């Protein structure tokens, strides 16, 4: 009789041999080919070469090939970087190749690896035992290793950047300055202060690559690389980005990227914080008001420029008014300006800047109004009209003279939206009449009652004013709905 189990015995033989083979293979792979073991044997050789005195011989004798780690429960870190970076705190290892070299500078004197670990400053995957996985550019890990020059971004985890010596954090210092110079606060909030057109940047450094659009980015697809590329060309990295190209050099982009990466609200045990960090947190709660000029530079400049001329904005598809033009500040009252700054202009890109919106302090708003009105006549020439206006005649005049720029129903277009509720509330009759009569120097708004050739008579202006006031009643609800959709950047970052 044919043996019915012969085939199974052959199968068993083959399967068992394959099993033994792969088990042995896995054992060899793990025990003899591990990268860190190779590295530690190299380091042992280096120690041997340098064992010229008693101390050197002692260190050599103490050295063991084994996994090493800095376990810092307070920071939630188990950093095994020291398994390969064996010479990190050995001052003799300055002339050897990485990964054996001494840590540069005197950083470790005050930040011993035993207490701080590595990843709190450098990021990267501390648990890993191969360089690729520790670097974590292309593995599943949220915070890849920062390039050496960008590592200063993490100093502010425990320090107040303003109290650190600027030569130790050159990029971070430059980044902070650039943020103010480029008036990034006009669109972005940081620490509760800033515009609402772009996303708030308070936790920008905590973002992972999954929160950023990587499609157009050349590898590595890391957050630091994204920041770098994005500052060079926002629209090239984020399609349909509303952000204006900040026009910076590569080094400036690096500085801004470092500043962005430093924005991370990390929970660090108090014992790790430098005393000035605690002071900084206190200062943030009790800010010192900026001067009017500083406020203008940091929060207005990006859209209004120097404020003397109105300008056409390609991204916004509308005119941005000249807010320091003589003709405006000579007619606009302090209250008018204050209402516009504090409440914004719903329906336009101008956000509200009051303490609960853009985060400007009352003193700062006063300051910036002073700054805007600098050089304006103290008592603007205002003439009141006592005539009663006829809205229907006003409408026909409006259609003929105004709607071309201010849009049907005053919903705005080339010129400001004069139907919107903040304008309607804040602009006094005198202000509107004065503007129609005298126009706006530095803008497209002409004077309609030039002494030599008046386009409109006093009665006409009264009619237009009466018509304009009816817009305020009609609009209201629409305007607010529109404001919501417009102030969120369409197609921005997810």
């Amino acid at each position, binding site marked *: 009789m044919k043996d019915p189990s*012969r085939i199974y*015995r*052959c199968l*068993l*033989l083959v399967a*068992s*041999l394959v*099993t*033994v083979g792969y*088990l*042995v293979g*896995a*054992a060899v792979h793990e025990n003899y080919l591990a990268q860190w073991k190779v590295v530690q044997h190299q380091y042992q050789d280096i120690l041997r070469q340098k064992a010229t005195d008693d*101390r050197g011989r*002692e*260190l050599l004798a*103490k050295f063991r090939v*084994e*996994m*090493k*780690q*800095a*376990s*810092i*429960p307070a920071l939630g870190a*188990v950093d*095994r970087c020291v398994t390969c970076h064996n010479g990190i*705190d*050995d*001052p*003799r290892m300055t002339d050897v190749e990485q990964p054996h070299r001494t840590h540069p500078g005197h950083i*470790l*004197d005050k930040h*011993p690896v*035993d207490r701080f670990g590595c990843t709190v400053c450098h990021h990267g995957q501390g648990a890993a035992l191969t360089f690729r996985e520790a670097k974590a550019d292309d593995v599943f890990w949220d915070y890849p290793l920062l390039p050496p020059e960008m590592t200063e971004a993490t100093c502010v985890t425990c320090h107040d950047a303003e109290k650190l010596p600027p030569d130790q954090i050159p990029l971070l210092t430059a980044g902070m300055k650039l943020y103010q110079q480029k008036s990034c606060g006009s669109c972005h909030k940081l620490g509760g202060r800033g515009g609402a057109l772009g996303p708030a940047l308070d936790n920008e450094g905590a973002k992972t690559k999954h929160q950023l659009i990587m499609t157009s980015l050349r590898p590595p697809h890391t957050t630091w690389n994204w920041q770098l590329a994005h500052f060079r060309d926002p629209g090239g990295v984020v399609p349909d980005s509303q952000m204006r190209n900040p026009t910076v050099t590569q080094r400036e982009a690096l500085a801004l990227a470092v500043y962005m990466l430093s924005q991370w609200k990390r929970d660090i045990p108090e014992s790790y914080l430098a005393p000035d960090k605690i002071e900084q947190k206190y200062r943030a709660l009790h800010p010192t008001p900026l001067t009017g000029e500083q406020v203008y530079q940091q929060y207005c400049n990006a859209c209004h420029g120097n404020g003397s001329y109105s300008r056409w904005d390609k991204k916004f598809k509308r005119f941005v008014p000249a807010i320091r033009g003589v003709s405006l500040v000579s007619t606009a009252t302090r209250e008018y300006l204050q209402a516009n700054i504090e409440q914004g202009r719903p329906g336009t890109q101008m956000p509200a800047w009051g303490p609960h919106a853009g985060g400007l302090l009352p003193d700062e708003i006063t300051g910036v109004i002073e700054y805007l009105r600098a050089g304006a006549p103290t008592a603007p020439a205002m003439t009141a009209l006592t005539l009663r206006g006829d809205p229907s005649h006003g409408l026909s005049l409006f259609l003929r003279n105004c709607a071309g720029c201010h849009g049907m129903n005053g919903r705005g277009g080339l010129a400001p939206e004069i139907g919107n509720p903040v304008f309607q509330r804040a602009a006094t009759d005198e202000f509107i009449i004065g503007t129609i009569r005298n126009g706006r120097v530095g803008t497209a708004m002409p004077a309609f009652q030039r002494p030599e050739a008046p386009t409109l008579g006093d009665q006409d202006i009264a009619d237009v004013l009466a018509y304009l006031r009816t817009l305020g009643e009609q609009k209201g609800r629409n305007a607010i709905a529109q404001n919501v959709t417009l102030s969120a950047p369409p197609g921005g970052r997810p």
Partner: protein
Amino acid sequence: MSRLDPPRINRRSFLSLASLGSFFAALGTAAAGMLRLPNPAVLPGPVRRFKLGPPEQFSPGSETAFAEQNLVLFRDDQGFYAISSTCTHLGCTVARSKDGFACPCHGSRFDSKGSVIGGPAPRPLPWLEVSRAANGDLVVNADNEVPEGTRYRV
């Protein structure tokens, strides 16, 4: 043909032995691998090599207890030495007493050099290896014992 008086059969063959042998070899290799797993490759928790700072801060004749590290550091004329404060009986932490150390758990007593002077402790308190780190700091390696009386000279 009756099954009660069956013919002797012999199923041993090279194939059977080889397949069975390789099966047990596979089983053995797998078991060896699996038994390696529970033994931790790297001990969790902070390292037990304690950096105690520059040696100058300890004056000769001083005695400094490090409660968290479970050791006492001494410095005398001949150099540094560290004695573990973990009882050699069953691992309780000993307390400093008049004449040396006393263990609260089972009454072991040691003199100030760690030698047993009473109670169930089988050996003296271990002397720990003192050395210096690459940056000059004094280091006590609580995992390494040295013979009693060993001093580390700075």
